[in-house]
């Protein structure tokens, strides 16, 4: 007892770093790493070359654009210096707003430095280049899938139900989409299949979460695991012996006349498959619905304070059912989009996109517009991680794949800005 008392006076008040200071320090570290690894790590005379030519599915180049040549070391040092400057500015001026935007800017510079490194000449005889247009096109494909997943999360969680089964809904959508496309060669029917299976899985999740008020995380994880195991089983029992049922092809691109001809932007935004245009429409529609309409006000009320919603006669349970099923539909279509991008079903096709989509949901603060930013950032990391093996980048691809999760951990722990989930998110609702 006496020793305890003696210790008390020595207990000093704890000093903790503020979250903006942590971000500032992180950016300084990222900048130092960029300058060291990509700037000093490049030979002094090496140069980086970027090209911007659009590439068709057939591999032909419809038109040429001039290439851009940069000195590698100077460019990467400059990128590193800019990131450090951003970090120092945060530490120095302690801005209250737009912390996330500053951090995002740093991340973009980091990506550019990676690409600059990757496109450098390795020696006098060896010329290398990176096609920035195809990098952007390549990053959009996973971003589309991630956006479907995050939008599904927006619909469910804004109404107060956590949908952690997105991974499973993706897989089911991809499986059925592949099967239907193989038989009918029609992506409209494939999409319908995704709608039906997504709605079904959403309904099952809703039933457990709402009828039996079971823990939504556990119900969702179990459902996702079940679907994934079922997918492997069906793959083994059906698709392997009968390969004609797994003979689909990627969805064709639909180029928008005129707009598709714009350099860089055209191939990236206006020469995509139907699932890209559909998700753009969904983002706009859900954003409008949630924040401008009566439906959205009621959904958000149900997700924030279900008792208050019930006290003015809103049917909380019904609203949640509808939204979880709608969310399932969106994720199911996202699964078809995943297949439409890859062109073939394999058991591991989802490779964690459903969970990255949930991270994007948090990163995007449960808003359709924010979710798009997250999907682009995460989609680009996925693309780079999958494609940079070809270049001798001094960053392991596994590290790049960790990027979305590291960023999400910072966001969730409140280090970058304040994120607040809908207040009743994940909490079962009981009528009195």
């Amino acid at each position, binding site marked *: 007892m006496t020793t*305890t008392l003696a210790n008390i006076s020595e207990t000093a008040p704890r000093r903790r770093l503020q979250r903006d200071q942590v971000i500032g320090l992180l950016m300084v570290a990222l900048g130092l790493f960029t300058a060291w690894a990509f700037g000093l790590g490049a030979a002094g005379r090496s140069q980086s070359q970027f090209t911007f030519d659009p590439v068709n599915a057939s591999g032909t180049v419809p038109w040429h654009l001039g290439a851009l040549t940069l000195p590698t070391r100077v460019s990467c040092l400059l990128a590193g210096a800019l990131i450090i400057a951003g970090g120092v500015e945060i530490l120095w001026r302690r801005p209250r707003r737009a912390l996330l935007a500053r951090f995002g800017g740093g991340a973009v510079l980091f990506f550019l430095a990676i690409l600059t490194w990757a496109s450098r000449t390795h020696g006098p005889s060896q010329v290398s280049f990176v096609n920035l247009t195809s990098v952007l096109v390549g990053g959009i494909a996973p971003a589309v899938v991630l956006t479907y997943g995050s939008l599904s999360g927006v619909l469910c969680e804004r109404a107060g139900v956590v949908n952690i089964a997105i991974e499973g809904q993706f897989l089911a959508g991809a499986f059925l989409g592949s099967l239907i496309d193989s038989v009918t060669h029609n992506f409209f029917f494939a999409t319908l299949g995704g709608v039906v299976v997504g709605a079904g899985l959403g309904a099952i999740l809703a039933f457990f979460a709402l009828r039996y008020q079971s823990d939504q995380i556990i119900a969702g994880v179990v459902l996702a695991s079940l679907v994934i195991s079922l997918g492997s089983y069906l793959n083994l029992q059906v698709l392997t012996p009968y390969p004609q049922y797994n003979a689909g092809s990627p969805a064709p691109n639909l180029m928008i006349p005129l707009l598709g001809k714009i350099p860089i932007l055209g191939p990236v935004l206006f020469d995509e498959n139907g699932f890209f245009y559909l998700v753009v429409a969904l983002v706009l529609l859900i954003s409008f619905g949630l924040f401008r309409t*009566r439906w959205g006000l*009621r959904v958000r009320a149900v997700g924030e304070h279900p008792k208050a919603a019930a006290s003015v006669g809103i049917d909380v349970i019904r609203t949640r059912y509808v939204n979880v099923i709608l969310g399932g539909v969106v994720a199911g279509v996202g699964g078809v989009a995943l297949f439409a991008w890859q062109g073939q079903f394999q058991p591991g096709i989802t490779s964690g996109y459903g969970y990255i989509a949930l991270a994007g949901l948090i990163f995007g603060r449960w808003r359709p517009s924010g979710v798009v930013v997250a999907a682009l950032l995460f989609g680009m990391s996925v693309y780079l991680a999958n494609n940079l093996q070809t270049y001798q980048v001094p960053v392991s691809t596994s590290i790049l794949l960790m990027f979305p999760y590291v960023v999400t951990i910072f966001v969730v722990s409140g280090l970058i800005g304040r994120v607040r989930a809908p207040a009743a998110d994940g909490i079962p609702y009981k009528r*009195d």
Partner: protein
Amino acid sequence: MRVELRGITKRFGTFTANDQISLTVEPGQIHCLLGENGAGKSTLMNVLFGLLRPDEGQILIDGEPVTFANSGEAVRRGIGMVHQHFMLVPVFSVAENVVLGFEPTKSFNRLDRLRARESIHEASQRFGLEVDPDAIVEELPVGIQQRVEILKALNHDAQLLILDEPTAVLTPQEIDALIGIMRSLKDAGKSILFISHKLREVREVSDVITVIRQGRVVGTAEPTDSETQLASLMVGRDVSLTVTKEAHEAGASRLEIRDLVVRDDRGVAVVDGVSLDVRAGEIVALAGVQGNGQTELVEALAGVRPVESGTITLDGRDITNATPREILDAGLGHVPEDRQRDGLVLSMSVADNLVLNTPRATPYARRGSRRRSEVRRNAEERIRDFDIRTESPEAPVSSLSGGNQQKVILARELSRPLKVLVAAQPTRGLDVGSIEYVHRQIVETRNAGQGVVIISSELDEVLALGDRVAVMHHGKIMGVVAPSTSRETIGLLMAGVVLEEVAGA
């Protein structure tokens, strides 16, 4: 609208919460339902508002019998309720909250925000309910949030407004404003059912008073009846409304708080530079509207919330950011605000709860194993000394009434050598008999030479118990005054006017 309750009975298992209750609210009347906590007021209102189904009895609106399957149906029949815990979505604007469920829309189901704003303006002007329709609700003071609740009910075209303990969270000035609003509603022909156990307000505003006790109507009273008459009707026996408190000389300083800054869960500095001394043998009462930092201050004192800066010194020892264990051992007793969440382990026995703060100390444990006989012996002693009403020491503490649960906590904290007792809302939700008992214990603790800090949102309690009254507003102490100071002055301090200005006015 004339609303009549006829013979309403509501049972929960074997417990009868409402027993043949009848009352009538006439149009343009403020009808008060007076009763202690647990008398069945809230149950009755939930029956009237369609949240509970009565087992017997009828509700009549303008003479016509009605039944409500849910509260939406009650709202459609013109009944509006302002709940004790507001039914507002914190992140929504005032306008969004008011129209929720009854939204005006344009084409494509779009919200018509302009019309929502206009209808709020109109109601604001008609009933004197000033409020900015675009403000975000969670950023508004509680008094204004309550106006939003009232506006919401009026927007749903309520003819009868049920106000459930509306003054519990308000400053005296806000209470005056609320009473003004109630009167203007009454003049506009609305009926009001006003639920309260605060005699002062009940007498000031009511036209008719119905008193209920243990689920039964025990009589009606006139607003002209004295507070003592009302109190004895409510409690069922004569009660003294004052705390007998002998004069007592304060001694040396026991607890010193210097420039304390504490943040709440959202990171806001809700205690913002508080300095306060508590001497031996005195009660310092912290007054203030709920949510002005009192809760967080007490949590910091008890070591359950980190201190950002500043120091807390207990009898010369720095206990800033010490662990709760160290603070308890240093001689600080803590009666937490939410006794069921923070003060007790409800599923554990009375005996175990009585030794919760000394789990490893002799004689209750030896070499890591518990000695049940000692725990039981201790429990029997405490149950006798503190008059805890329980079937047995082994009964789960959840089976006790609120007053007896509070006695368990007091018995636990007061039966070890203390230097300072910190009690948050020590009588919240207790019946009058238990309140008298708790007050007596607090005064005796002070008479025994210990320092006492209490926080309370009941101004009567603060003034009755405190030797000095410190008024908090927005995390700062606006002034430390004698308990003889006028309620008006204290009310101004609670509203954030600094002491010099109050004195100057």
